[in-house]
C-alpha cells in the first residue's frame, strides 16, 4: 500500500500484518509518501525459503530501500516492525533520515515480564492490546475463511520470528549504539504485551533517541490514539527534517 506525497516514509507493520489503509496512514499521507509493504511471509505475501529470522527481514528491507531508491527515508516500525527497523538501522543508517520505533519488540529487559501473546485466546489478545476496552470489544472477528487464513499465517510468521527467545534477539542490544539518526521511541503507558519500561531501556541504548509515553494507551498507539500518535510523529519528523 502506498499513498501521499512528500518525503518517503516506510512503515513496517506488527504481527497483525498490514491489510488495511488505516486512519493514521491517511493522516501521515497528507505530508509524506507513505509506503506500507507487507512483510514476506505475512498476509498475501509469499513465504520465501530464506526467511528464518528478523535479521533476514532487516536485510530484505535494506535491499528494498535500495531497490526503490528511497534516499533519506523516514523509517517507522511498530512492535515486530519496530524490531525489524531497529535491526535494519544497526546494520546501516546510510539511507535513513529518521527512525520511529513504536513499542518495538527486539530486546529483553531483565526482571520486566512481557505478556505472552501465544498463550492468549483471541479475546484476551484484543483485551490486552488496548487500554480502552471499548475498542477491544469493537474489534471485528474475521469475516471470512480468507481472513482466518491470513490471521493464522500472520500468527505462524510471528511465531517463526519471535517464539524463542520470545520476541527479541539477545544480540541486538549490543549494537543499538550504532544507530546515529534522530530516533523517536513511542510507547503506550498501559502496554500489556511489551511494558512501557522497555521504552526507557531502548532510549538508554540508542544515543540519538528520545522517548515519549502516550497516556491511557495500550500496545498499538497508532490505532488506539491515532491522532496523538500522528501529531507526535509529524512533530518529530519535521524536527528531524531540519
Amino acid at each position, binding site marked *: 500500500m502506498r499513498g501521499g506525497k512528500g518525503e518517503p516514509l516506510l512503515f513496517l507493520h506488527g504481527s497483525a500484518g498490514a491489510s488495511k489503509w488505516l486512519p493514521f496512514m491517511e493522516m501521515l499521507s497528507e505530508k509524506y509518501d507513505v509506503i506500507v509493504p507487507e512483510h514476506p511471509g505475512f498476509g498475501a505475501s509469499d513465504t520465501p525459503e530464506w526467511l528464518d529470522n528478523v535479521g533476514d527481514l532487516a536485510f530484505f528491507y535494506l535491499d528494498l530501500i535500495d531497490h526503490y531508491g528511497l534516499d533519506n527515508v523516514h523509517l517507522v516500525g511498530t512492535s515486530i516492525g519496530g524490531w525489524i527497523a531497529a535491526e535494519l538501522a544497526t546494520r546501516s543508517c546510510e539511507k535513513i533520515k529518521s527512525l520511529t520505533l513504536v513499542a518495538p519488540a527486539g530486546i529483553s529487559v531483565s526482571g520486566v515480564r512481557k505478556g505472552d501473546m*501465544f*498463550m492468549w*485466546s483471541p479475546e484476551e489478545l484484543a483485551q490486552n492490546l488496548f487500554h480502552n476496552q471499548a475498542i477491544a470489544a469493537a474489534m471485528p472477528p474475521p469475516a471470512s*475463511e480468507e481472513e*482466518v*487464513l491470513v490471521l*493464522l499465517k500472520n500468527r505462524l510468521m*510471528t*511465531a517463526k520470528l519471535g*517464539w524463542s527467545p520470545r520476541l527479541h534477539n539477545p544480540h541486538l542490544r549490543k549494537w543499538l549504539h550504532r544507530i546515529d539518526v534522530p530516533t523517536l521511541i513511542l510507547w503506550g503507558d498501559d502496554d500489556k504485551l511489551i511494558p512501557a519500561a522497555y521504552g526507557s531501556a531502548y532510549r538508554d541504548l540508542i544515543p540519538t533517541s528520545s522517548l515519549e509515553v502516550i497516556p491511557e494507551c495500550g500496545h498499538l498507539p497508532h490505532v488506539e490514539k491515532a491522532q496523538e500518535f500522528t501529531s507526535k510523529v509529524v512533530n518529530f519528523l519535521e524536527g528531524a527534517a531540519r
Partner: protein
Amino acid sequence: MKFYMMHLMPYADLDLDYDQKHNSAWVTLPNSYYDPKKGAKLYNRYLDELEYADQLGFDGICVNEHHQNAYGLMPQPGVMAGALARRTKKVKIAILGRALPLLNNPVTVAEEFAMVDNITEGRFIAGFVRGIGAEYHAWSSNPADSHDRFHEAHDLILRAWTETGPFAFEGKHYQFEYVNLWPRPYQSPRPPIWIPSQGSSETIEWASHPDRRYTYLQTFTPVAMLAKYMQMYKAMAAGHGYEATEDQLGWSVPLYVAETDEIARREAQPHIENFLNKFLRMPKEMLLPPGYLSLNSMLGVMKAKSSIGTKQTIDDVMAKGMFICGSPETVRQKLEQYQSEIGFGHLLTLLQFGTLPAELTRKNMEIYANEVMPYLRDKTANAIPAAAE
C-alpha cells in the same frame, strides 16, 4: 495381533480442585501441586505395573514423553525404559516416543535408544513424535520449525544408527563434524520405528512411504476416525505399489474390563472422567501453537466444533469408541469387531488412566490378560498363516 500395555504415569495424587484456580494441568500449573513423596510412590507403583505386564504375558510395554504437567510424569522416558530394561525378561519396551523437534541434539536420542536396545538384547521399539502443542510452550521450542526439525532429527538418528561412522552431518538445524555412535543398536539394521499420531495426513503419508513403512499408531481417536486413518495408510501404501501389513498399523486406547458391564462402568467412571477433564485439560492456545498444524489443518480445526474445553463423560467416550469398557465378553466382542474391520496388528491399551488406583489397575490388567488377550490372540493368530501365504 500383539498386545501392549501403555502407561502415561499421571500424577494421580493431583488436587483435583486445581481447576478452580488454574485453566490447565499443563505448563502453567504450579509444581507446588507435586509432592515428591507421593510422586516417588507413584513412580514405583507404575513401574511395578509395567513389570507385572511382562509376567501377565503382554507382548510389550510402552512409555512416552510429556513435559511439565500432571498428565504424564515422564519428561525423560529413557529413564523409565532403562529401569524396565533390567527388570523385565520377555516384553518389548517401546518409547512412544521422543519428541524430536524439541531436541537440541538428536544424537542424544540415537544414543539413548541404542543403549536400551543393547541392554534388552533387542527388545526395544523406537517411537518418534512431534510432541503435543503444549510441549512447545514448556520447552521453548519453535512450533513454526516443528516439521522441519522433526524430519532433520529423524534423518540424523537413522544415519547414526545405520551408517558406519564417523560421518559429517550438515543440516539446517543440526550440524556435526563427527557422528560415530557407540553403541550401535543391537537390532540390525535398527530398532523398529513407530509413529504415534492423531491423524495428520502429512504424517500418514510420510510414515507409509516405501522408504520407511513405519508402524503408524493412532492415538486417542474415535473409532470411526481410526478406521478412516488406517484406510488412508493402506490406500497410500497401495498408491506406492505395495500392500500395508497389519504390522504397520496400531491403535492406542484406554480400556477397562471388569466382572460385568455394570461393574466396569461404575469402577471406571470417575477415573476416566478425571483423565479427560482434569489431566488432559488445557486451553486451545496451548494445545495448538502456530505451526503445529499446517494452515489448512488449523483452519479445519477452527471450523470444526472443537470438544476442547467442554466436559466429557464416560458415555461420550464409550459411544465414540475412544474408551473400551465392559465385561470380558463385551470387550472381546468390540475389539474383535474393530480388529476384523480395521485390520490393526498392534493393540496398545492404557489400563491405568487418570486416578485409577493400584488395585483396580491390577484387576483390570489381570482380567484383560486372562480373559481378553488369549481369545483375541487365538482369533487373530488363525488369520496369520492365510495372510502370510
